């Protein structure tokens, strides 16, 4: 086999015999153990959840356009924000990056054929389906109006479908544990020979830190939700003050999971951004080991700060003080990551393509989200800002501005790998721009009205807040349009996009040493390890319009500089 044919087969576009068409029929998908197919199924699932919960968001934002009633009663409004929150958090954000992108990319990045426990992986997906199904059933039958936090004793008193929703969340928790456990073991035991810990791309470090949290924190959520169900069904009196129980204990249990869960949401996003920065600046990431260790540090510190959600709950002052102090300590590693990304851009060779634009908007939005956390970590200001729109804006800047932009950036980056086709650059950028503008317009006014005293979860409000709500509603519509365009551009690429080779961006991590889309076994040749940020190791091949790892090119051939990407 001549070298050119070999390269075309293993580094080019794979029309036949890729993981998508190696077997056919719905059963070959429903019972697949292939991490790539499971990743794609997860992707479809979480996108559905995103759109569903997004519709709820638009409905409730529309209702808030005027202070009085427009078209929702108070009770209906409460159901809207509850379902928006519960589905977004439990069915979308928590599984989004690890279970969809992580599933697809992580084993390939390690040079493995699959995750350690493929059947457990598939089961995780089906548990996701079952859990989401229960949430939707709760929504359709008796609805749910507790807020996504299920605070007792209201969640014990309300007549809505708390048991079904709680059970769904419990199942989703197991889905998350299985994903985390799988990745934990995969990273520890499935690395290709020679793939040492510090040769792993930073996305893997992000997922690894996330997996630790998923395994250690989610069981606490599980037992909490079981106790809540028992409380509702049997009145066991652990959380119900009517029987001598302690409602604040529920808050402690809940946030012991749900604060680390914030890092489940953001750490994989930070991992993606680190990799995007390196690839699109064509430069080794600045401070690799710091970023790697800071992910793990954030994961561990993240377990010690749950009480900062409860500064006004009536917990003791000393406890409050300690939680505030530890909270500030988490801020440092996050801030330094941002500096590292900036330093990576310095003297780089920056392609302002869609993934890079998402990465830059991540820095902008996550910057605001992180810095506004300081107002909430400081005790005096938190007393005023707690449970106002300031908090709402803060966590949306982190979760949507952070996680969702990172997810889109990652999707645009790995899309050619996943489906072998290139997205439309122009529409990709338009989507990114609309998301950025719409997002800021939606949530920035919420900081102002929050600190002016607008409490959260209010179906009606005083007239002085109206102008901010109106900006926010308009922004939400733009944001919605941006997300739809971003998704539509990706979907369009799957069917109509230009065919592309194995490594169109010249990235150096292992998943790109394969055809696009990859074959069933990921790599049908012997992979060659190189530093994941050594972009000189990839050589542009004009025949493929794609890059090839240096070792596979003809010996003695001079490296051809890469084709400039459109700017």
């Amino acid at each position: 086999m001549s070298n050119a044919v070999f390269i075309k087969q293993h580094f080019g576009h794979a029309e036949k015999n890729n993981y998508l068409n190696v077997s056919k029929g719905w059963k070959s998908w429903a019972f697949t153990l292939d991490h790539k197919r499971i990743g794609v199924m997860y992707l479809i699932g979480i996108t559905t959840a995103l759109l569903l919960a997004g519709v709820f968001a638009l409905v409730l934002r529309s209702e808030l356009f005027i202070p009085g009633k427009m078209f929702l009663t108070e009770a209906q409004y409460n159901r809207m924000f509850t379902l928006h929150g519960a589905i977004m958090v439990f069915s979308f954000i928590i599984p989004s990056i690890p279970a969809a992108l992580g599933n697809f990319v992580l084993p390939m990045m390690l040079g493995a054929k699959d995750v350690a426990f493929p059947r457990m992986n598939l089961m995780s997906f089906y548990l996701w389906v079952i859990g989401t199904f229960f949430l939707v059933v709760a929504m359709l039958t008796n609805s749910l109006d507790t807020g996504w936090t299920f605070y007792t004793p209201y969640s014990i008193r309300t007549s809505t479908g708390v048991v079904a929703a709680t059970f769904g969340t419990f199942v989703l928790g197991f889905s998350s544990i299985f994903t985390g456990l799988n990745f934990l073991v995969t990273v520890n035991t499935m690395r290709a020979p020679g793939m040492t810990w510090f040769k792993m791309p930073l996305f893997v470090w992000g997922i690894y830190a996330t997996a630790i949290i998923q395994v250690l924190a989610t069981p606490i959520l599980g037992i909490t939700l079981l106790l809540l169900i028992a409380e509702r069904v049997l009145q066991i009196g652990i959380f119900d003050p009517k029987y001598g129980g302690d409602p604040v204990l529920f808050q402690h249990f809940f946030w012991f999971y749900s604060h680390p869960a914030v890092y489940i949401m953001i750490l994989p996003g930070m991992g993606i951004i680190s990799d995007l920065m390196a690839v699109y600046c064509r430069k080794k990431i600045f401070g690799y080991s710091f970023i790697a260790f800071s992910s793990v540090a954030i994961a561990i510190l993240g377990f010690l700060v749950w009480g900062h959600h409860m500064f006004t709950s009536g917990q003791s002052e000393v406890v409050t003080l300690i939680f505030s102090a530890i909270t500030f300590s988490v801020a440092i590693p996050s801030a330094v990551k941002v500096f590292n990304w900036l330093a990576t851009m310095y003297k780089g060779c920056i392609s302002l393509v869609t993934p890079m634009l998402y990465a830059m908007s991540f820095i902008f939005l996550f910057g605001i989200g992180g810095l506004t956390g300081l107002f909430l970590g400081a005790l005096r200001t938190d007393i005023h800002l707690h449970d106002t729109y300031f908090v709402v804006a803060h966590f949306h800047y982190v979760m949507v501005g952070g996680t969702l932009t990172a997810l889109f950036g990652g999707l645009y980056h790995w899309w050619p790998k996943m489906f072998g086709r290139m997205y439309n650059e122009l529409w990709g950028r338009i989507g990114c721009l609309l998301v950025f503008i719409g997002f800021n317009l939606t949530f920035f006014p919420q900081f102002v009205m929050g600190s002016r005293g607008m409490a959260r979860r209010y179906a009606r409000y005083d007239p002085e807040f109206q102008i901010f709500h109106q900006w926010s509603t308009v922004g939400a519509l733009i944001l919605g349009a941006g997300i739809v365009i971003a998704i539509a551009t990706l979907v369009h690429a799957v069917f109509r996009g230009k065919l592309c080779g194995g490594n169109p961006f010249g990235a150096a991590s292992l998943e790109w040493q394969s055809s696009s889309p990859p074959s069933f076994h990921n790599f049908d040749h012997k992979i060659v390890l190189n530093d994941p940020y050594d972009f000189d190791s990839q050589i542009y091949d004009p025949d493929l319009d794609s890059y090839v790892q240096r070792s596979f090119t003809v010996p003695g051939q001079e490296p051809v500089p890469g084709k400039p990407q459109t700017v």
Partner: protein
Amino acid sequence: MTSEHGDHHDDHEHGEFIAHHFESAEQQFDAGKLGIWAFLVTEVLFFTGLFCAYVLYRFHHPEIFVQAHHFLDKILGGGNTIVLLFSSLTMALAVRASQLGQNRTVATMVLVTMVCASIFLGVKAVEYSHKWDIGIFVRAHFSLDESHHPKGISPYLTMISIIPLILLFVFGAMALLYRFTNSLFRAAFWGGMTLMVAGYFIGAIGGYFYMKVGGGDAHSTAGKVIEHHDDHADGHDPGDDHAQESASESQPAGGAHDHETRDLHHDIGIFFSIYYCMTGLHAIHVVGGIVALAWIFYRSLLGHWRSDYFGPVDYVGLYWHLVDLIWIFLFPLLYLIN
């Protein structure tokens, strides 16, 4: 429970039991081992939530924990502890035998482990049903009335025993069926299952006669301890309690201090809420353990274990030791207060 376990090991249809995505048997074993350890960590954390609730309520109401534990029978609890410890020993022997490839020994030892697990559940059923008989339920339904103790076999015990009884007949019938169609392997498997379920009845019948003969001791002393509260308990049906509760709700803190005796009585219910949550969750894990052990038993009969492939026995063994360990913590925390 089992399916999680099943997933720790890969498809044994692939030659030599090594799944296609593993490079070597060693890698597969390491992955499985790390996986089961991580899984055990999640299990421990799952119980940790309950231990936290326990610590908190014991810290706030130490007196009711002292009062309530008199209702738990130390002999039954202690007996169960010994049964579980013994089952851990046989499980360890099974793991050792699997490493040596002695499949027959593995099968025997796993079978003994399963029977012990069933005995444990049988005794637990006697303990639960006895409490339900005299109205010891979770907090809101707690209505202690010792005169309600039934003469013959507790109706609750009968109800709980229906499922094991059905299983006993089904498994026994399967064993006989295969015995007479000469499928000796299957007959052995279902025979083992029948023995396993029989363990439940050993535990239940033993516990029943113990309660009949000497078991009165535990709760009659308890009766004395809380005698002076009984007049509050008697004659209140649960609905009545509700009404009173919601009435006293209007002044929460006042209600908490005005009438000490009634509060003690009501808060004993919280102890039993925690007791039922902890032991119930543990019992579910025992049932899960039995299913996993049955799978090991099945594969032992097929002779799957070799010195280079014994991971599943090892993993299930670790899980079983954890279930045992949790009980070792639960027993003193619940039964041996003071």
